[in-house]
């Protein structure tokens, strides 16, 4: 997967700017903040990674950019700026024109993300009919071409196949073809390879990175796998319990992780080659459990699990501290 990293294409101003995003979760008579104070920027053609464990809010952050939050989730505040245009309050019709055409998305489960009763060719062709006013006949020809681009073998036959006739990897290629059909500026990939075998995953990631690089499409990559994201992206933000706790250039996040949680994640996982170099060491554990959204602790949300916790961590939310190269970290004990 080396060498497939997407590089920034330059341009004026960021492509996507998310500022102080807050996502509300409507519970029984109570409203929780599933995500709060989340800010990040993605440049044109840049690959940006959002990393965190399940339930940390990374997926719904992506859905909010697409305008696809559904009950009981809703946008609670903040700004989402796409190419200079604020879209957080855009009407449903305006969002529809953006979706698919300028911002596209790939989901985790290729098994269920495609309509089982519709041939895959038609599902790709819909994009051309919807956004470019193509006729169905013309759109089907272009769907075949799109399948060829994602390296599906014998696309002229495959366009008539139904999703259940394709393997998981092939289905995810179809999803990529749909997402990139109209040449979007931003591709959001939500755990695109988690459901796939590792050797297939490598191919899909390479394919995605390569196609986006060729078309100058920026990527927002969402994953629980820090290694995967760091390998593919220019910059990485780490989320924990609804907040971004650290954001750095990809290489730096492994070399100099600044938040105790990031450090803990990197140290706690056995990495290939480690045992050969240093012998078997006991893994560094992060104690405790991931908090549920109904019971987020006050102050720094990592404080009950943090080895360096002090009183201030339990009461005060840490502000962002700058790190080199536009990085930030939210920890009282940094520096």
């Amino acid at each position, binding site marked *: 997967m080396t060498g497939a990293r997407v590089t920034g294409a330059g341009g004026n101003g960021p492509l996507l700017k998310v500022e102080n995003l807050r996502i509300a979760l409507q519970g029984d008579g109570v409203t929780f903040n599933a995500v709060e104070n989340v800010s990040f920027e993605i440049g044109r053609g840049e690959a940006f990674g959002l990393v965190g464990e399940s339930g940390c809010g990374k997926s719904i952050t992506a859905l909010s950019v697409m305008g696809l939050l559904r009950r009981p989730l809703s946008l609670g505040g903040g700004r989402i700026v796409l190419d200079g245009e604020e879209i957080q309050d855009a009407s*449903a019709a305006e969002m529809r024109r953006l979706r698919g055409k300028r911002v596209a998305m790939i989901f985790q489960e290729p098994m269920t993300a495609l*309509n089982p009763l519709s041939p895959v060719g038609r599902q790709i062709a819909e994009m051309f009919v919807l956004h470019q006013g193509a006729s169905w006949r013309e759109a089907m020809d272009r769907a075949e071409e799109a399948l060829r681009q994602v390296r599906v073998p014998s696309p002229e036959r495959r366009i008539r196949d139904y999703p*259940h006739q394709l393997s998981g990897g092939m289905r995810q290629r179809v999803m990529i073809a*749909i997402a990139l059909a109209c040449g979007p500026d931003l591709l959001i990939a939500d755990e695109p390879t988690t459901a796939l075998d590792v050797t297939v995953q490598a191919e899909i990631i390479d394919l995605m990175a390569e196609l986006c690089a060729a078309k100058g499409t920026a990527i927002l990559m969402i994953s629980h796998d820090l290694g995967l994201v760091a390998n593919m992206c220019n910059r990485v933000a780490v989320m924990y319990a609804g907040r971004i706790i650290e954001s750095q250039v990809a290489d730096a996040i492994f070399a100099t992780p600044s938040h105790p949680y990031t450090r803990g994640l990197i140290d706690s996982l056995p990495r290939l080659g480690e045992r050969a170099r240093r012998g078997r060491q006991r893994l560094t554990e992060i104690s405790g459990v991931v908090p549920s959204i109904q019971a987020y602790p006050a102050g720094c949300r990592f404080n009950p699990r943090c080895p360096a916790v002090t009183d201030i961590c339990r009461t005060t939310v840490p502000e962002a501290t700058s790190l080199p190269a536009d990085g930030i970290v939210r920890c009282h004990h940094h520096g």
Partner: protein
Amino acid sequence: MLLVLVRRVGNMVPTLAAVIALIFVLFSVIPGSFMSGLGDDGRTMDPAVMERMRKEMGLDQPLLERFVKYAGATVVGDLGTSFRTREPVTKLIAGRLWPSLKLTMAAMLVAMAVGIPLGFVAALRPGSLIDTASMVGAVSGLSLPKFWLGLLLMYFFALQLKWLPSFGYGDGGLTHLILPAIALGVSPLALLARTTRAAVLDVLNADFVRTARSKGMSERRVVTWHVMRNALVLVVTTVGLQFGSLMGQAVVVEKLFSWPGLGSLLVDSVFQRDIPAVQGCILVFVLFFLIINTLVDLAYVAIDPRIRYG
């Protein structure tokens, strides 16, 4: 498609065979009790008559022989001779088949034409007035005794308003059909409305609908391009099961409205101890169920590419 048909028809055979055996066991092995059971209503049977009937029914022959005879005759379409009219049962049934079919199909038409769209509309606006109203209506519809609903319809539309005839077959025209069809159709209508609503809600939560939305599709297109067919797949089974059993369920409605269908024939035959006619009617109901469900399975294969029997 042909293969599927062959397979499905093949699947019917054991079920049908089991039903024939069951009917035989019910009525031919224990007919003594069948007769004495009906003797309960005060009349006692003359032993001589009993003996004659036993002879007539061939009860003096060995069991297995009787079964082979019965099954063999049934398979070639000979349902025996009615005790009451001395006519072949097939002829009796043939005369009742069309009214029965007409009533069943009319009721199912009402159920599908109203129930499925109602369920759709309710699901697209969950929690709205129309959703709540139609679902309260549906659960009520499921709880109504058919014959009581028929009585009420009869009372209001025939006796009070005098819009429609209160019972009978008339000349076979539409006016006589309306009330019984509604009385029979309300419960499948209610069930279809509920099933459709649940199916549409299910599909609306599916991942591929989220994909469709992420493509920038309008909600109307999401529904017409991606939701409808998928929801229909989930509804088809219910349609089949309801339709298939509706002819049998019509018994009470036919009786209430004096509708000259198979249900009336069955009930009358039961009271007249006309065993061959009773057996014949049951067999027709079962056959109807199996045929309808085979057709539904074929429809299934046509709309769902994941199902490939062949």
